[in-house]
């Protein structure tokens, strides 16, 4: 096997040093024979590197990927352009094959890049402190609810029906073992119903979650909800699409207490939905409740500035059952991808990307709602995604468009949110005028 660097002779020498003649003798000293003597494994035979490459190529080519077809699917994961420099740096062994930077002196590369990541995320979200990453947007959302409950000592979380259904599902799974209730804030016209929200936010409420733009791409009226949350002593948790934040008001500007986001748009491939990047940032008063790693700046014995993991007493390896979270392995490499991506983009690039998505989605909207059999579902302002009602079942539409090289969007009937004949389309810099004109042409011809 090409990943084992010792010969039989060397192994024999090592076994002798360990006081045995052969491996079975060694193994038997540790593991009772009856647990391994008759164990059978039915596994396919080993493959050479060449053969395994062929096998994986075959599997890969059974998928239809967004480089072969034009996709307007979004809903939490987006097809963005991947600058070549991102992977060129990411796949450096020095980053790629290192682990959690427990030993700061030999991990300054990872530590400083996380420090830079924390800075960028705090800046973009408009918050004071970012952690070093969560698993994904959905689990970040759930962990934010946990922070809020611990901080307020309250046990009711309000989750709007306009939150990504998968985030709502993950949040309620995460809280299911705890005495914390998850109540749904109703929606009207695709937005949080403000009046109901006002009534439901009370002195038992730990947190109100608000997604901006919401799952349907629409812009929520955030201020009154945050105001009423704060008045009731609850925390406001905002869930955002970070690519919009060169343009849209940040959670910090809205006065959110916790901001979470799915960082996938920042240089991370769609990859069938994982690995993703959970971003989380809070204001200083909550820093000791943050889950996961945090990097701080310090000084070394030689007087150099440098970085190390900090406030580790929040974490499971020290605090065990009293830790703020169980998270250990996180999404560090995805955080690095985002850091490199944002370094390339700069503030102008971030804004520009948001504007491209905005312009493309509006160009498409104006055309789409004029196609026969398609109509606009909601009237309020949207960002990079919008919903159309269709006279033909969306699943049928998708099937037909696929034959013409288009993935037109997400069939909302698969979610239990009462939007049955609705298709949601998403836009990025990858879906410009050319792609949209093709989309319109295909949809018009169905």
């Amino acid at each position, binding site marked *: 096997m090409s990943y084992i660097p010792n010969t039989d002779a060397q192994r024999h020498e090592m076994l002798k040093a360990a006081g045995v003649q052969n491996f079975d003798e060694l193994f038997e000293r540790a593991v009772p024979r009856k647990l391994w003597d008759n164990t059978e494994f039915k596994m396919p035979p080993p493959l050479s590197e060449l053969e395994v490459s062929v096998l*994986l190529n075959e599997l890969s080519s059974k998928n239809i990927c967004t480089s072969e077809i034009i996709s307007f699917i979004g809903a939490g994961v987006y097809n963005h352009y991947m600058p070549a420099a991102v992977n060129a740096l990411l796949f450096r062994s020095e980053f790629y094959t*290192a682990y959690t930077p427990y030993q700061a002196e030999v991990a300054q590369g990872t530590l400083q890049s996380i420090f830079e990541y924390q800075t960028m995320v705090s*800046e973009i979200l408009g918050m004071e402190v970012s952690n070093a990453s969560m698993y994904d947007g959905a689990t970040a959302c759930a962990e934010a609810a946990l922070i809020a409950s611990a901080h307020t000592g309250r046990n009711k979380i309000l989750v709007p029906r306009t939150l990504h259904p998968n985030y709502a599902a993950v949040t309620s*799974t995460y809280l299911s073992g705890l005495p914390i209730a998850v109540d749904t804030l109703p929606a009207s016209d695709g937005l949080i119903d403000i009046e109901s929200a006002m009534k439901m936010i009370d002195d038992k409420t730990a947190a109100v979650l608000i997604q901006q733009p919401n799952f349907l791409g629409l812009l929520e009226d955030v201020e009154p909800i945050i105001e009423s949350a704060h008045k009731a002593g609850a925390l406001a948790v905002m869930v955002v699409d970070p690519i919009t934040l060169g343009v849209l008001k940040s959670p910090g500007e809205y006065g959110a207490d916790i901001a979470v986001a799915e960082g996938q748009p920042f240089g991370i491939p769609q*990859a069938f939905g*994982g690995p993703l990047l959970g971003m989380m940032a809070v204001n200083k008063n909550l820093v000791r409740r943050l889950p996961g790693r945090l990097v701080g700046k310090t000084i070394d014995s030689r007087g150099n500035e440098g970085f190390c993991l900090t406030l580790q007493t929040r974490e499971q390896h020290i605090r065990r059952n*009293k830790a703020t979270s169980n998270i250990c392995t996180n999404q560090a490499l995805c955080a690095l991808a985002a850091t490199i991506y944002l370094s*390339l983009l700069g503030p102008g690039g971030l804004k520009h990307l948001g504007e491209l998505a905005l312009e493309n989605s509006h160009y498409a909207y104006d055309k789409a709602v004029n196609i026969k059999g398609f109509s606009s579902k909601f009237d309020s*302002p949207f960002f990079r995604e919008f919903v159309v009602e269709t006279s033909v079942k969306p699943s049928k539409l998708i099937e037909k468009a*696929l034959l013409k090289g288009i993935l037109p969007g997400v069939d909302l009937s698969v979610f239990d949110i009462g939007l049955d004949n609705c298709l949601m389309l998403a836009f990025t810099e990858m879906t410009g005028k050319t792609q949209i004109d093709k989309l319109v042409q295909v949809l018009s011809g169905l």
Partner: protein
Amino acid sequence: MGQEGNCKTKGDYLALSKSITIFDRSTPGLSGLDLPEIQKEASHFIPEKYLRKKKPILPEVSENEVVRHYIGLSIKNHHIDKGLYPLGSCTMKYNPKVNDRAAMLPGFTDIHPFQPESTVQGALELLYNLAELLGEISGMDDVTLQPVAGAHGEFTSLLMIRAYHTKIGNPRQTVVFPDSAHGTNPASVTMAGYKSVQIKSGQDGLVDVSTLKAAMNENVAAFMLTNPNTLGLFDKNILEIADIVHSVGAQFYMDGANLNALLGRVKPAEMGFDIVHFNLHKTFSTPHGGGGPGAGALGLKKHLSPFMPSPIVVKNGDKYGLDYDRPDSIGKVHSFYGNFANLVRGYTYIRQLGLDGLRSVSENAVINANYLMANLKAFYDLPYDRTCMHEFVLSGERQKKAGVRTTDIAKRLMDFGFHPPTVYFPLIVSEAMMIEPTESESKAELDRFIEAMIQIAREVEEKPDIIKTAPHNTPVGRMDEGKAARDLVVKWSPITEHC
């Protein structure tokens, strides 16, 4: 240290070498990525009240400068492609390059989780086959691939166990685990709404059967055990332990972080476990990426299947699909289906190795660890002096009496070009050094490590100062972790950072 410039403030001299962040390299007007033109400003589409007023500070740097910056950072890291990384419990093995090439195929990177099933048959087939293989390796009936890390798998399992107990009566109140357990175990217990009951390990470092018996009752939902445990010892009484756990109707959870020692030899199901988490980023060679992403699948017995996270991958004839119709499922624990790209890597690895390769992994991992242990135990205390599995734990007590702590030894090892072992864990060994060489290391590399450890042991006697002031050959000296926590600075800012 090409990255660091000396910096003086006007007036008093500061002998500080400042860190140069990407923000310090920023020059207004530069950018590292050209984009297509836009026609209209955002305000054309969106009312003013939704628009951002306070611009985020982000670096303005050209692409070549970005590349130099991160290459400059990268060279300050130790990593497995450079040398031994014997971080116990983390299984820092070589990450085969073919895995990454496979994971980066456009058919895997450029597919969306909401694409129609007909367009992602290859991905679903891979997931289905990987689940089958992990089922075979663990002897379990079913596998879910949704959790994305070990801790995530623990938490998911405990929610499934809660759902199982609830279904047959009541959820129960506590979860028991030994004091050698990894910190994620108790932390997951709390998140799943259970009370932690930690039991003391026996003199031999294993589960003390009478202590366990005393702790088990009808309130206990599960017993969590790492086997081999975090001392690198296999619990020989495992079948008896399983009986004790099951006799009160509790579930037996295996923390499978140490599965590398058992690959192709011992099946968790045959040890009596009901559910096990795999760390694909340890056992199945997916890269650690500076702290993640990982992948943390679960193998489980049939009685727990209904509670698996939704959806599950199913096969109908020669078509693959996602089944959401799972009325007893605990729900979702991830936005989509887990860390797919890492599942591709793990699948590539298992298919390439086959059974012979997996057996070779466990054999070489165990031999390497025992070889190191045999050569080091004369120089350091070995509290549990028995044949180990894939790792073992030394104690720095002897050295501590001479005034040198385990931290110092860890830092000194860096001067020899090695990453230190895991230190101060497990908590039941004082001044612990947990050493896991993995199967990836040659005898020559292990001999170099032994030599370094012996030299350090000698230095403790002869010139302890060189250890206490270590490291000396690293990009930076010993970091003041206390200061980092006291004077919390967790982001760059133009005021405190500019000279």
